[in-house]
């Protein structure tokens, strides 16, 4: 793609992109650290994760200002318009990922307060998958690859399946040991947080696809989230 005649315009767009990437890296890191704190019940680390969520919030504001600046000065159109609108939405999505990581850290405190209940191994698998999705979606963004964005979008199915399995396993453990329901509920919520991080990565993938092609990833997302259906059915 050609550069703009006005090179400062390119600089501003690059600045917006760089903040998005920075936020994505930070969110991925937050997730890893939150999971490490949970695994080891490391409350010091959990505290750090909670504190550094503020960095992500601050970056979101920086991104917002940069995007508003582009709107005010450049009146972007066509792919530039799609790029900045998508960036603005992506930063909100990434910030949400950070919130989920923070919530995992918060639950680490609650879990460590109760009786010792070993973390379900599947949560680790889910976290690895979610981390991969963030990593891959950032790669798609950096490479401006619509195909890579689709791949991330499709891979959410794996995380959804993993979540369904995890949900059932935790439910089974609750039935086996009702005295640990409190701790296990926290693990269940953490599983949901991880699944939501995947959803946000999928949303980011949709934004990337739109920014590149101008089209929406229209196909209804194959929802493999049977647990939701079961829960609704029981109501």
């Amino acid at each position: 793609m050609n550069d703009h005649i006005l090179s400062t315009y390119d600089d501003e767009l690059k600045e917006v992109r760089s903040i998005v990437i920075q936020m994505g890296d930070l969110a991925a890191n937050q997730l890893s650290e939150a999971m490490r704190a949970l695994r080891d019940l490391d409350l010091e680390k959990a505290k750090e994760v909670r504190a550094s969520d503020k960095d992500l919030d601050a970056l979101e504001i920086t991104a917002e200002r940069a995007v508003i600046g582009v709107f005010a000065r450049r009146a972007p159109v066509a792919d530039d318009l799609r790029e900045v609108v998508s960036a603005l939405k992506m930063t909100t999505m990434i910030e949400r990922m950070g919130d989920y990581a923070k919530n995992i850290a918060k639950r680490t405190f609650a879990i460590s307060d109760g009786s010792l209940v070993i973390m379900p191994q599947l949560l680790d698998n889910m976290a690895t998958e979610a981390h991969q999705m963030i990593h891959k979606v950032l790669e798609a963004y950096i490479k401006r690859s619509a195909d890579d964005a689709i791949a991330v979008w499709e891979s959410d199915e794996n995380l959804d399946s993993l979540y369904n399995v995890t949900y059932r396993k935790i439910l089974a453990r609750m039935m086996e040991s009702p005295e640990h329901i409190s701790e296990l509920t926290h693990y269940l919520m953490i599983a949901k947080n991880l699944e939501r991080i995947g959803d946000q990565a999928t949303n980011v993938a949709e934004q990337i696809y739109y920014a590149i092609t101008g089209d929406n990833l229209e196909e209804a997302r194959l929802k493999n989230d049977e647990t939701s259906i079961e829960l609704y059915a029981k109501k």
Partner: protein
Amino acid sequence: MINTPTETNLDTVQASPKMAARGVNVYYGDNHAIKDIDLNLYADEVTSLIGPSGCGKSTFLRCLNRMNDTIPICRVSGQILLEDDDIYTSGIDVVQLRARVGMVFQKPNPFPKSIYDNIAYGPRIHGLAAHRTDLDEIVTTSLEKAGLWQEVKDRLDTSGTALSGGQQQRLCIARAIAVNPEVILMDEPCSALDPIATAKIESLIDELSGRYAIIIVTHSMQQAARISRKTAFFHLGEMVEYGDTTEIFTSPKEDRTRDYITGRIG
């Protein structure tokens, strides 16, 4: 009455263009300035023609009321239809044509006459007013439609050239309206105006769009985006892309359109 397009009458409008270009080519001597343009221009809507300088958009605009006739080396081929009539057929009364297809230029060009006479000139030569009262009526309504009446009603006998640039341009629009045109062509009508005067003209274009087919050449992307429903992008004499303005400015189909509107080519 402003004729707001509804879904139903939009369909009818879309079915029969007010003006249409069919395989139009324009040559200035050996220079092939316009290449094989096919374009429908509909009543009740504003169409913007955009593109870099020298792309042929003004040349094309001037074909629509045969303003190019005045250039001896200019040759036009193909068909330009006003409803069902080819305006380049011999025997067409060009003066009559230009009443039906009016024009507003880049620089406001009021006659060095009174405000009243600026408006009355057209209706007089076209015999649209039998009596002075009819003429008064035309002058008043034309100035009202052009949003200028309140500002000039007490000084209709002062010279049109004494008005501000923005007022002069609205006077020129009122002058075009006075002869009941069906189409109004505008060649960068705001390029000599400040943002306030520009906003007034744009608001006027918006109001007039329900009554006339308006075709506007503009260098301002934002102006095209603000005021037109359809946009055509010209480059090197070709019409590269034509479509809904929103579509052109969010997801243009052609790379050349994208590069131009985003400021990647000069």
